[in-house]
């Protein structure tokens, strides 16, 4: 990622005024809408046309120790805890399963040529190109028949569909970047297959594997449509809970609270994984 020629990062003014305007406008467009969301979740009374709430929560803390929205969000009747546990649990299961399925296949795709390779590669990107609603509704029929609709197993399996293309792409790029010399040396020196994998290959590809896992986890935790269709309302995750809250077309204080909770996994990953997510090979 190092740029040739420029050793010193330049000032923000290094880009021209139009570019500065564009960057600032897009940051505003991206981040600013979160402000009213936070305000709404802390407001006590916020009627039109006031730009800020007329009564804030802390002015009424005698009535409730927590902001009303957060009091509800943290209570068991909002099902936020259940949805969070489901979201994280499903995300972890999907990530591990996806890794187990994709890691060996990515090695083969990166290192050998075989008949039908390009067809297989097409099959792998197909989930990104077919409308998600079409896949979801068609699979729902099959899963109802198999008794998988509304179960964790069904939801986890269906989450593989949008995650596999990214995982395979990222892992294939990682394998391609490393070649096979180190493994060949280890084999020549008499290492067994499992020794080669765990002591040579895995340490080399680990950063890429972690990046792939984080991205897969993220895709899974943000997935709405397939969870909604296959989960049949039995399995609630943060995105489906939020959808149920706002599907009427209005957003109240508790909806704002749930929206903030639903953004938390992404925000945390954004701060802690900057260097991992930075260079994932989306555009290969």
């Amino acid at each position, binding site marked *: 990622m190092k740029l040739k020629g420029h050793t010193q*990062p330049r000032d923000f003014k290094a880009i021209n005024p139009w570019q500065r305007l564009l960057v600032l406008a897009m940051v505003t467009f991206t981040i600013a809408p979160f402000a009213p969301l936070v305000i709404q979740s802390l407001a006590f009374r916020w009627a039109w046309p006031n730009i800020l709430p007329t009564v804030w929560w802390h002015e009424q803390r005698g009535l409730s120790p927590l902001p009303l929205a957060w009091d509800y969000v943290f209570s068991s009747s909002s099902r936020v805890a259940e949805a969070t546990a489901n979201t994280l649990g499903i995300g972890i299961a999907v990530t591990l399963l996806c890794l187990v399925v994709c890691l*060996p296949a990515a090695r*083969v795709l990166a290192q050998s040529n*075989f008949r039908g390779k390009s067809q297989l590669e097409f099959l792998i990107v197909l989930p*990104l190109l077919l409308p998600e609603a079409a896949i979801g*509704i068609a699979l729902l029929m099959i899963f109802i*028949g198999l008794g998988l609709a509304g179960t964790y197993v069904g939801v986890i399996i269906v989450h593989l569909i949008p995650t596999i293309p990214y995982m395979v792409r990222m892992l294939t790029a990682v394998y391609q970047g490393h070649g096979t010399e180190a493994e060949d040396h280890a084999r020549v020196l008499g290492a067994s297959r499992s020794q080669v994998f765990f002591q040579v290959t895995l340490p080399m590809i680990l950063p890429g594997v972690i990046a792939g896992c984080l991205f897969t986890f993220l895709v899974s935790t943000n997935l709405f449509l397939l969870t909604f269709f296959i989960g049949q309302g039995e399995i609630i995750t943060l995105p489906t809970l939020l959808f149920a809250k706002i599907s009427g077309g209005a957003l109240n204080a508790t909806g704002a609270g749930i929206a903030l909770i639903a953004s938390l996994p992404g925000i945390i990953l954004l701060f802690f994984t900057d260097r991992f997510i930075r260079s994932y090979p989306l555009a290969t």
Partner: protein
Amino acid sequence: MPKPYKAHTAITGPLARRQTLRDLAQVLPLFVVLFFLFGGAVVLAVLQSFGYAPWFGINEFPSTHYYERLWLSADFWLSLGYTLYYAIAATLIGLVISIPLSIALCARFKASRIFSALIRLPLMVPYSVGIALALVMLGNGGLLSRFSAFIGWIDDPAQFPLILRTHWGWGIIAVYVWKQVPFMTLALAAVLVRKGDDTHEAALVLGATSSQIFWRVTLPQIMPGIVSASLICFAFNIGAFEAPFILGGGYPDTLPVLAWRYFQDANYAFQLQGMAVVVSLALVSGLILSLYLLAYRRYERARGRV
């Protein structure tokens, strides 16, 4: 313990076959998962849309009845039009924003890391969060409406121009753009970083103006990134459900919402109609994507790159 020479003689007969078998075994899980999930879904969807559903006591296979009813209704074409309009408009606006944005962020100024991290936030949160933001910003009681009242444009929420729940779909498009600009920007930035600065500098040295550099050097170079990012976003938009469901203008809905409504109908027979909608959607999407790829291939061939 394996003999050392095996690693380099693995090209001969039986060993080569063993390697091939091992490769095959390693690809197999992925193939099985994709083939059964997709193959099963596609076969079943097509069968059902042609009237095969013995579990509901319906078996009129092969009947084109459901397609006829669908394709002969004017509302279907209206739905298709809305679906395509939202998907194409959002993809185009997203591209127009993210191409200059990725170029600006690749200039590596001091704060570019912070800015690119901030801009990446929508990529990390669910679509429904974007919809919640659209409701709180763009709704008639939302923040923009309050600001309009503040500066004296309107004095009643009802006077605020309808942004959500219209067939113009401003809200839907805004959510798609908000969510997809980071994705496109990242994809394009990856291509920009890989191509490096050399050609750009060479053009500069040879006296090209900055607009010439953009149109003749940078844009052709990032074209593969533009195509793949816009393909993925378009395909997603055309099959998206929650944004048109919540922010859309109601009947006639976009095709995914229409399919879902058929599917939720108390009358089971409507599920077959829903399947016809789903298959039509997949066909239209496939057709447009192949035409797009074909056009791109012609472009590349004209430039002598393929």
